[in-house]
């Protein structure tokens, strides 16, 4: 088997990965009334329909708030824990790391059931609080893995220089460590937001009746039939979950170029 064959095969693999996405985006601009092939023209009517669909807009707001809160809490917990693991000689580091990434070692369905039943027993039924708790716990391991990987590359001696020049540990953290840490914090937060915004497996267990996030809204719309509105919603989701990280990466790059790093 030659290199050319491997290359051709790989191109097919890329096509396999992108074909469904391309079809969703194409169909969302379809003018055809039934939103199916063949496409009859380009139109924004499905995006307009989406904008006027109260259920979808509500789901959007819910997902946005949930994602932002999840990112905030998860990143805070994750950054603190990563700092401890990377910067200190903690006894039992391996065990602690295993415990902290346990939420991704347990199948999400099992995690969803356990959390639902336990919090319900404590008197916290299906609610926004339960959703938030669930999203925080299964995004936390991803944040910790991402932030840790970045933290390792930040040099310790800059902090030590600040300390030796008379800065207090707290001053050092806020004026030296945190600015250096910002790319890691941003990466962790973006990761948490995207995973939360995209989740359906746990969300279907935790959401109270009548509350929908964007993925569960799509899921319930699918029960009827696949309407072009779903494709338009899909396109919006793609822009948010792919566009945001790319934008974040671009901004981070601009900043680091300006700083001359």
């Amino acid at each position, binding site marked *: *088997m030659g290199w050319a064959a*491997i290359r051709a*095969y*790989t191109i097919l*693999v*890329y096509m396999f990965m*992108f*074909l*469904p996405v391309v*079809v*969703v985006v194409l*169909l969302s601009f379809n003018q055809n009334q039934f939103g199916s*092939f063949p496409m009859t023209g380009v139109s924004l009517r499905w995006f307009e329909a989406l904008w006027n669909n109260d259920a979808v807009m509500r789901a959007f707001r819910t997902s946005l708030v949930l994602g932002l809160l999840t990112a905030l809490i998860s990143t*805070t*917990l*994750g950054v*603190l*824990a990563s*700092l*401890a*693991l990377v910067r*200190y000689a*903690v006894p039992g580091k391996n065990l*602690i790391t*295993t*415990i*902290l990434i*346990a*939420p991704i070692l347990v*199948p999400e*369905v*099992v*995690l969803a*059931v*356990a959390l639902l*039943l*336990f*919090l319900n027993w404590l008197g916290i039924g299906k609610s926004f609080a339960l959703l938030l*708790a*669930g999203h*925080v*716990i299964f995004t*936390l391991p*991803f944040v910790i*893995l*991402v932030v*840790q990987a970045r933290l390792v590359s930040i040099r310790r001696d800059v902090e030590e220089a600040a300390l030796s020049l008379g800065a207090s540990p707290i001053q050092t953290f806020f004026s030296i460590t945190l600015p250096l840490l910002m790319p890691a914090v941003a990466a962790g937060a973006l990761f948490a937001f995207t995973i939360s915004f*995209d989740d359906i*497996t746990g969300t*279907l*267990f935790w959401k109270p009746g009548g509350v929908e996030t964007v993925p569960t809204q*799509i*899921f319930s719309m*699918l029960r009827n039939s696949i309407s072009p509105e779903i*494709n338009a919603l*899909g396109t919006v*989701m793609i822009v948010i*979950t*792919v566009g945001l*990280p790319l934008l974040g990466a671009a901004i981070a790059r601009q900043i680091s170029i300006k700083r001359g790093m």
Partner: protein
Amino acid sequence: MSVEAREKRQPWILLSPALMAVTLLLLVPLAFIVVYSFWLRSAVGPDIQGFHPDNWQRALTDPFYRYILLNTLKIAAITTFFCALVGYPAAYFITRSSGNKLILLLLLMLPFWISYIIRTMSWINILGSSGALNTLLISTGITSSPIQMLYNEATVILGLVHFLLPFMVLNIYVSLDGIDTNLEDAATSLGATRWQAFLQVTLPLSLPGLAAGGLLCFVLGAGTYITPLILGGPRDAMFANLVFEAIITQLNWPMGSALSLLLLLVLGALVAIYNRFLGMSQLTKGLG
């Protein structure tokens, strides 16, 4: 307080919020559903507490549950096999290509960022009765009426392979990228053909990555219930669908606890076997 004592306490202060969250929101709830699985559902009023092995007995002996469990493992295994078959050559190409490897990898990982539900439902646009493929077949005159291609086991596997392939490629890539290409050159200079060099040098060295990717695909695939709901027919339920049914539809929470623990035990046993032979470090390498 001495500086030394403070140094010792600091990491624990930093760790405690995260450790508390995992303990209260995962470890304690898991222990709780172990207890809950021995309770009984009552038709009226709250669940009956106590020690009743009935749920477990049913979960382990009911032929329907066993059938679904075996079917789930089968679907996960086929999915993993196809992920490896599709993913390995692609990962190999990315590692050895002369172009920008990072861009190529990032491009293949891009769908990973695209919503799981969107990627799953997009297959309806392609394979549905008014989808791209049927439209093409009809307009070229190959068939006169749309062919029913959706809602069977094959489409469930297709959806899962599409969902899980990036995990496989990333893990194989990490493994392949760490192999010194001089090794393969050495083998060929000693008389091996390129194919022999690949089979006897590169492939064995990349097995840890293949195993890590395979484990991820298998465990994630076996734990899904959304894909069979969207792309499967009524007979393509997987084990997580049973859990969902028990908890959400039948509100039989003790039974749901037993079923989800059974799933955890089966998949946990696989992870434990993997950990015994290969260790967890390979897995976190691929994720980080």
